[in-house]
């Protein structure tokens, strides 16, 4: 029941292969990531989720297959090139500087300048607008250091940072891991709003509750292969678990 998005996808992986010495980490991964939707990438540990997102993020070059971005085949072999296209990956460590405040983090590496100096006021204003668009309201002051934020708020800052850099595809690695109930809620809502604004979102997650809550499309990996992808409505909890643990689903489950 693999349903590809055809030409409508923002990013399409076609038969991507990746080997590390004798280990075949990815074999024939075909995956579509459409704009304006949340695509969840599921799979057990070692299924190849991390390798897949790192390949998309430009950390590793695929050994075979092709990537199509917005209808054009692409080859990027550095995270910088991927970011230049508009692919922004948020890893679990979030890559924030605790000693800097929210505005400073959101603009890190892309500071606004005026007469060669940091233009704090413009940055603050733009950061505030972005946070407002994403409806991140739990942050009282955007001038507080990131060290003082909760996990959910930090995640929100990382997302806002991605949006700030005009990302077209935001990949999030386990965004709700280690978050409490209400913070998970916060982050999931944020992910939905992000997709609603037209950005393609890919969420890597173990947590099926979150996946079914937030995903428009689900893709499951098993032992380095992408075994199934399709609209979330075509899955249920049992079939998803079976795909994740065995690579196929029994007819009754699907």
């Amino acid at each position, binding site marked *: 029941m693999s349903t590809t998005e055809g030409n409508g996808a923002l990013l399409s992986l076609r038969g991507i292969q990746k080997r590390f010495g004798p280990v075949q980490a990815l074999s024939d991964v075909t995956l579509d990531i459409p704009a304006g939707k949340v695509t969840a990438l599921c799979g057990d540990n070692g299924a190849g989720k991390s390798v897949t997102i790192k390949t998309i993020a430009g950390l590793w070059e695929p050994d075979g297959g092709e990537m199509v971005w917005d209808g054009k085949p692409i080859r990027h072999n550095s*995270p*910088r090139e991927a970011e230049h296209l508009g692919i922004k990956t948020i890893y679990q*460590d979030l*890559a*924030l*500087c*605790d*000693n*800097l405040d929210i505005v*400073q983090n959101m603009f*890190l*590496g*892309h*500071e606004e*300048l005026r007469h*060669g*100096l*940091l233009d704090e*006021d413009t940055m*603050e*204003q733009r950061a505030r607008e972005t946070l407002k668009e994403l409806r991140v*309201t*739990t*942050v*009282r*002051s955007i*001038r*507080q*250091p990131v*060290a*003082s*934020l*909760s*996990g*959910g*708020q*930090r995640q929100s800052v990382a997302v806002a940072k991605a949006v700030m850099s005009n990302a077209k595809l935001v990949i999030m690695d386990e965004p709700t891991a*280690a*978050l*409490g*109930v*209400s*913070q998970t809620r916060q982050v999931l809502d944020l992910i939905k709003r992000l997709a609603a604004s037209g950005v393609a979102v890919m969420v890597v997650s173990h947590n099926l509750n979150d996946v079914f809550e937030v995903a428009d499309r689900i893709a499951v990996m098993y032992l380095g292969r992408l075994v199934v992808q399709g609209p979330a409505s075509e899955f249920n909890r049992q079939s998803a678990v079976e795909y994740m643990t065995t690579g196929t689903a029994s007819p009754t489950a699907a």
Partner: protein
Amino acid sequence: MTTEQTEITPDEGSESALSETELTTAAPEVLATSLGDYLDAWWRRIKNGESGALPVIAGLVAIIIFFQIERSAFLTDQNLVNLFEEAALYILLGAAETFALLLSEIDLSIGYGMGIAGFVLTELSAPPVNLPWWVAVIGAVAAVGFLGFVQGTLITRIGLPSFIVTLAGQLAFLGIMLELANVDSTAVGGVIQLSPTSPIYKLVNSNMSTSLGWIVLAVCLLLFAAVTLYRNRSRKARGLHTPPVGVTVLTLGMVAVAGILLMYVCNNNRGAISVIRGMPWVFPFVFLIIAVYSWMMARTRTGRYIYAVGNNQEAARRAGIKVKWIVTFAFIMSGATAALASLVYTSTQGNMSTSLDGGSLVLYAVAAAVIGGTTLFGGRGRMVNALIGGLIIAVIFDGLGLMGVSPAVQNIATAFVLLAAVSLDAIVRRRAAVR
């Protein structure tokens, strides 16, 4: 790590993940809308050990009161001016060290880096070379800045620990300094005299006239007030948060009082036999350097990146920051600043000599930065910290000297102050981690 601990805490119910009190302690005056609010948040922050320079300033005041009670000669015009002249060296070396500490690196070479700068400076400006003094200054800054560049390159490109590279630097620079004195036939016994007419000599030994002092002070205060008010107004116009008016007035008032008091002390006659008045040039020299550095750290990309790299190198790298260059730049700056400190050193001595104890000076430099509140773990600290820390060290040496305490005990006392400062830093970090 602090983050994991906060992340695990579940927080059902509350809209914000942190409670209101926690938020205001963590992010203090940013939320305050009135003077009362502000003071309230500020007090909470102090209790939380997050007050920045305040406990250190309180410590400085306490030490001063202690010495004044012990020796009434302590708070005299003459002693205060002497004390600051002594502090100037520690402040500048502390600022040099701050560049390295902010990146959680260390620079052990700045003591003898300053020694090299001192010889370059005096050899270029004294006979037979006789270059203008400012060329000599540029030469000294460029020479030691270049040595910093070499050390920074070794640290970043080969990946060597800065402790070892700059320890080697300390030895090598001592050797270079001795060699510079050896090859110079005018350096009799390793000493080059500084001409009393040289502006470098006058830095410490000559004073601004009292009227010039007041004029400079007035201009500085007016500029500071104008910039502060202009900033607040333009922020308000753009709908951004501004500190309450009361806080602005209080800040400006305190800065003005401090400036006027300092100028008053300097402009009193402090001579025992002949009349000596006016602020020594070394005062504005040090203030200017600290101000320019503070400005650079706060308002330029490079300054921002130093803090980013010091806190989270990986995040900085992923943000596209050239981490290696930032680290190298910090070592260039620490070398260049050591060269500026050599102006103060040679001016105070009236000559440059190989008897310079660069090994001890570098330790005072680290102590000045750390006592002032800069952490050894990177990412936290400011240039002003070096100013306060340098003053504290000078106050201790000066006060204990007045009390007739032996140098041995002076060192032990400084050691305790250093330990107290580092303990404070550790406690703050632990509190932050628990929160």
